[in-house]
């Protein structure tokens, strides 16, 4: 963007927030991070990243169709993602409650989603700049109304996730025992995919459909590398997602490069740092043990 950077960071932020579109971008980014981190945390735990990525790509024809038909972009994202989530949930489950065996079917859905997205773009002539934003993200032109929609949707999704969180954790780690304990494993799987669809639809509106993993996978994966305690790991992934969004928006404001690039770079940087820290910690522990054994 255009602003002038000073080392007075608070002043810089106040500067940005005096512009309504930047204020809305920070608000929307915060809402999206709050939902993306817990949804992504369960997605990483359940090894459903491929399904998550597919849902994201389905957002593309959704948004393109909505633009073509003159409906709101958000409506297109959310409705397509939720429908796709229900379709994936309806596919016959793998033997272990996982989705690994469905990857071929899901892959087909991905390809079809991208193709029909391009079709809608072609049908709606003069949408070429928009295509870039749909694929790689944009934080320009987010209205206060959109922020409200995102917030309401995220609040509902988070409330549902909180209600089903514990049995969902059980079903994700240990489906057979969870089922024996009366947990409705299959139904929870469907509920989670729909929640993931909503989360992906929200994230996609900021990061673009190709870069949703910047917020959906990287912060939870980083948190899971650092801590093994579920509640702490969930909380940490939310913090990391918020840091990612804020730093990326801050930098993007002063830079000519798109927001999706910065989001991904910050999130990836945090992940790399976490991996390096764990490696160093592991080596120090080994050295400590050797020292103890030697002395």
């Amino acid at each position, binding site marked *: 963007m255009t602003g002038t950077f000073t080392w007075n960071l608070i002043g810089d932020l106040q500067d940005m927030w005096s512009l309504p579109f930047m204020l809305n971008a920070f608000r929307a980014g915060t809402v999206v991070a709050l939902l993306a981190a817990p949804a992504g945390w369960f997605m990483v735990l359940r090894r459903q990243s491929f399904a998550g990525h597919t849902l994201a790509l389905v957002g593309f024809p959704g948004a393109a169709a909505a633009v073509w038909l003159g409906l709101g972009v958000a409506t297109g994202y959310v409705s397509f993602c939720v429908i796709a989530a229900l379709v994936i949930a309806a596919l016959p489950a793998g033997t272990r409650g996982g989705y690994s065996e469905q990857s071929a079917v899901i892959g087909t859905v991905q390809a079809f989603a991208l193709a029909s997205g391009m079709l809608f773009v072609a049908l709606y002539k003069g949408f070429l700049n928009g295509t870039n934003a749909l694929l790689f993200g944009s934080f320009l032109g987010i209205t206060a109304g959109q922020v409200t929609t995102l917030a309401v949707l995220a609040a509902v999704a988070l409330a549902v996730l*909180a209600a089903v969180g514990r049995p969902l954790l*059980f079903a994700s780690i*240990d489906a057979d025992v*969870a089922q024996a*304990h009366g947990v409705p494993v299959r139904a929870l799987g469907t509920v989670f995919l729909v929640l993931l669809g909503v989360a992906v639809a929200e994230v996609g509106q900021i990061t673009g459909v190709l870069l949703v993993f910047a917020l959906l996978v990287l912060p939870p994966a980083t948190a899971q590398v650092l801590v*093994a305690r*579920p509640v702490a790991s969930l909380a940490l992934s939310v913090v990391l997602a918020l840091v990612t969004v804020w730093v990326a928006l801050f930098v993007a404001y002063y830079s000519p490069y798109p927001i999706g690039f910065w989001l991904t770079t910050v999130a990836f940087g945090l992940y790399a740092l976490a991996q390096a820290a764990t490696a160093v910690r592991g080596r120090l522990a080994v050295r400590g043990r050797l020292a103890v054994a030697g002395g």
Partner: protein
Amino acid sequence: MSVVRADIRPTRRRPEPARRATVVEVERATVVEVDGATAVVGGRTVWSGVDATVAAGEFVAVLGPNGAGKSTLLKAVLGLIPVAGGAIRLLGRPPGQANHAVGYLPQRRSFDTSLRVRGVDVVRLGLDGDRWGIPLPGRRSRAAAARVRELVELVGAGRYADRPIGQLSGGEQQRLLIAQALARRPELLLLDEPLDSLDLPNQAAVAALLSRICRAEGVAAVIVAHDVNPILPYLDRVIYLGHGGAASGTPAQVINSGTLTRLYGTPVEVLSTSDGRLVVVGQPEAPAHHGGRHDRHAA
């Protein structure tokens, strides 16, 4: 409001142990009753006409070749698979209605090495993982944490229970899963090949641990076993599944060369060691052909 009514305590007496040890052992309550049951999985009859009972506190082995339907039997008892004929009663109720009183350890579960969830978390899920809502800090949460600690000590997993479960050895994971199965103070443990993938010393140690816990807590255990030797010293009863049906009896009735050779359809010898223990030799490890499905009519 937590007034301790000390005066009530003496009247709340437990059932006299003496009454259970009367002459007729049959008086022990029945935990599982399988009555002429048939299981159909994927359109195929796995077994039919199976009768079996498990009494309170009994240590029972389920033996049989691969594919005989041992795992299916445990799932049918839990109500995870409906029976196609006959009936199964679990604690006097239809399957699926008394699972809160059962600890279940499914077959061959080792956690992915990258799974970053601690052993204690897995044990805790066995206690209250089926509850909706967020676990809020408070009295209930502290009680649950204390119970988890107690379970971890019971199975001797204190040294490694706080490490991510995916990084533990098979034996360590199995001990934690046994702790998980015991979390809700069950009356019955259903363990599907709990000794599988353990080395010999660990097999003996886990078998002894299970027997000790079951005696101490009065829990009945049904253990699917691939190799009967590690649990042989502790058994009260044996259920043999094969040839589409089942045979059950005391270890002495089933664990002898004649019966096992006939049941497995391959020569099996039962030897007696100098200290009077039995050893089964020649028990098929993984029979290439299990007649069970093909000549079902023989049973």
